[in-house]
């Protein structure tokens, strides 16, 4: 047992001295990634705010051909600027412009009078997300105008305008402010799990590939200590780094997220110390499994560089269930809580939504993650017994 602690102490000391690995472990991971995500979320919130409210800037070519339509649009906060252009130039103009352009063809008025479908052309660059929202609003406004004319035509002909509405659908949005925000915050659980795993990377690689490359592995194997204990000491050090990173990341999120405009989505009250502690406790059981997995993968590589590549790929593995969960719209249920990393994702999301998962499901997550950790730690412990390790 004492040997485990001595290895642990030396690994921690060495990591603290290595500025580069310390920078990645404690700065890039826990500080930079939350800051980056905070910025992205704050942008997303501001954007989603401006899409559906506020005025729409609309350029109109040949405004004189449809004065009533434009008058109608003005009532709904559409600010119109007239431009002089033909169809070809309109297309080019819109490709780079911020807003859409409405082109009113010569026969618009005549066809409207004749009761035939009157053509309109709306040019817009929909690859710009903010334009998408504006186009949708414009389309529904014009549809509304068109519908009004249709109704009037029916009334004039002595028909009931209700004939035009065979189905009346009402959309009832059941999302709460919390759940809408949680959708935006889906990347958060990914960031937490990723930085947590990444912090164990250096020590994990160092256990096998690093020791071998520096030529310290053979001397280490000649000390009178059972070889598993050497691995356990390193594993423990990797776990400690991961725990520090986890606590740091969650703390940084808890401090910064309330300032990025989450209040508008009703989230700020939800990321307090209790939620932060819950997230840390929910993710902790995954630490031993993550550390042991990285050590195992690194042991099969021949050099430090190769180990970095493969272990880097391993860091993506826990994110796969998260992606599936998003695409398939998975909801927590006992069977899924047996999938490590996915279950941690559910625990984090549940806490952020203000709907913590039932104790039974959390217990499954904790139990399975720890069991997997125990198996992987056992396997890692056997590593130093293999001669192949010497390379």
């Amino acid at each position, binding site marked *: 047992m*004492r*040997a485990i602690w*001595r*290895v642990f102490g*030396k690994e921690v*000391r*060495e990591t603290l*001295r*290595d500025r580069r690995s310390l920078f990645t472990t404690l700065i890039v991971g826990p500080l930079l990634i939350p800051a980056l995500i905070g910025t992205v979320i704050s942008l997303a919130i501001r954007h989603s705010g401006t899409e559906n409210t506020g005025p729409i800037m609309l350029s109109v070519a040949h405004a004189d051909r449809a004065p009533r339509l434009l008058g109608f649009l003005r009532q709904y906060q559409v600010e119109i600027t007239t431009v002089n252009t033909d169809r070809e130039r309109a297309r080019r103009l819109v490709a780079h412009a911020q807003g859409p352009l409405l082109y009113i063809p010569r026969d618009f008025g005549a066809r409207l009078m004749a009761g035939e479908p009157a053509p309109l052309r709306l040019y817009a660059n929909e690859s710009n997300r903010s334009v998408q929202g504006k186009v949708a609003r414009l389309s529904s406004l014009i549809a509304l105008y068109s519908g009004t004319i249709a109704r009037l035509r029916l009334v004039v002909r002595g028909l009931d305008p209700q004939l035009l509405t065979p189905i009346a659908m009402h959309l009832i949005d059941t999302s709460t402010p919390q759940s809408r925000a949680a959708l935006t915050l889906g990347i958060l659980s990914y960031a937490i799990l990723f930085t947590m795993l990444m912090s164990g990377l250096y020590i994990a690689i160092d256990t096998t590939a690093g020791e071998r490359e*520096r*030529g*310290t*592995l*053979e*001397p*280490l*194997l*000649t*000390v*009178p*200590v*059972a070889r598993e204990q050497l691995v356990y000491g390193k594993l423990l050090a990797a776990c400690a780094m991961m725990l520090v990173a986890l606590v740091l990341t969650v703390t940084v999120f808890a401090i910064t997220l309330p300032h990025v405009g989450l209040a508008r989505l009703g989230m700020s009250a939800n990321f307090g110390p209790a939620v932060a502690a819950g997230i840390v406790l929910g993710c902790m059981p995954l630490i031993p499994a993550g550390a042991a997995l990285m050590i195992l993968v690194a042991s099969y590589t021949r050099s430090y560089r190769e180990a970095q590549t493969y272990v880097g790929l391993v860091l993506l593995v826990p994110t796969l269930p998260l992606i599936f969960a998003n695409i398939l719209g998975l909801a927590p249920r006992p069977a899924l809580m047996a999938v490590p990393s996915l279950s941690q994702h559910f625990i984090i999301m549940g806490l952020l939504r203000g709907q913590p998962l039932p104790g039974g499901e959390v217990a499954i997550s904790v139990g399975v993650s720890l069991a997997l950790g125990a198996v992987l730690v056992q396997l890692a412990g056997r590593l130093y017994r293999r*001669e192949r390790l*010497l390379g």
Partner: protein
Amino acid sequence: MIEARELSKRFGALSAIDGVSLRAADGRITGLLGPNGAGKSTTLRILYTVLTPDGGEAWIDGVSVLAEPLEARRRMGVLAHGAGVYPNLTARENIEYFGALHGLERDVRRARAAELITRLEMTAFADRPAKGFSQGERVKTALARALVHQPRNVLLDEPTNGLDVMAVRTLRRLLGQLRDAGHCILFSSHVMQEVAALCDEVIIIAGGRVVAQGEPEALKARAATASLEEAFVRLIDSSDRGSAP
């Protein structure tokens, strides 16, 4: 005392050593001499318990390296090939870490490290991180690390590789002191002059077999020549012819 009987080891299709038996006595410096790829390192690695032999047995002070590897490791100090050290620890910390892994208490390992640092003339760089060490400084650190638990048996794999004349002299003097204190020293080398200058006993190994073992004078007499180098070449040659069909 180090003993090996009929050690053999294969790596896949390649037979690294085949029936190596040897004996290195206390109070003597024994040199394992042979060309590159002869099986010197493999033999040493089996003795210091990093490799498991496919056949044969070995003992350190009568303790089987196969049956009781931990006990065997306690009885030997090892300078492995390349002398790697932890770059972010100072020389002193490198030495004390191994003292800790050998189960020495804090006071004891501090005192031992300090003593070895003086003895190996490492004071100038003892408290610098090992990152920027020269090969000589690294070897000294690795050697002090191997001796921190005062082992009775010392195994060194090509210890003089990359050392300058001054460092080689320090090393020779230290090995001589250890011998005079009754330690058993076994080291491998492919440098003839070194073995001639240092060894009480020479084991010549070639093609994974022991070709000859004896005192330098006896080997010269056996090969009927006045130089050890000539003896070495002739003995290896004759073994080649002997094993040819």
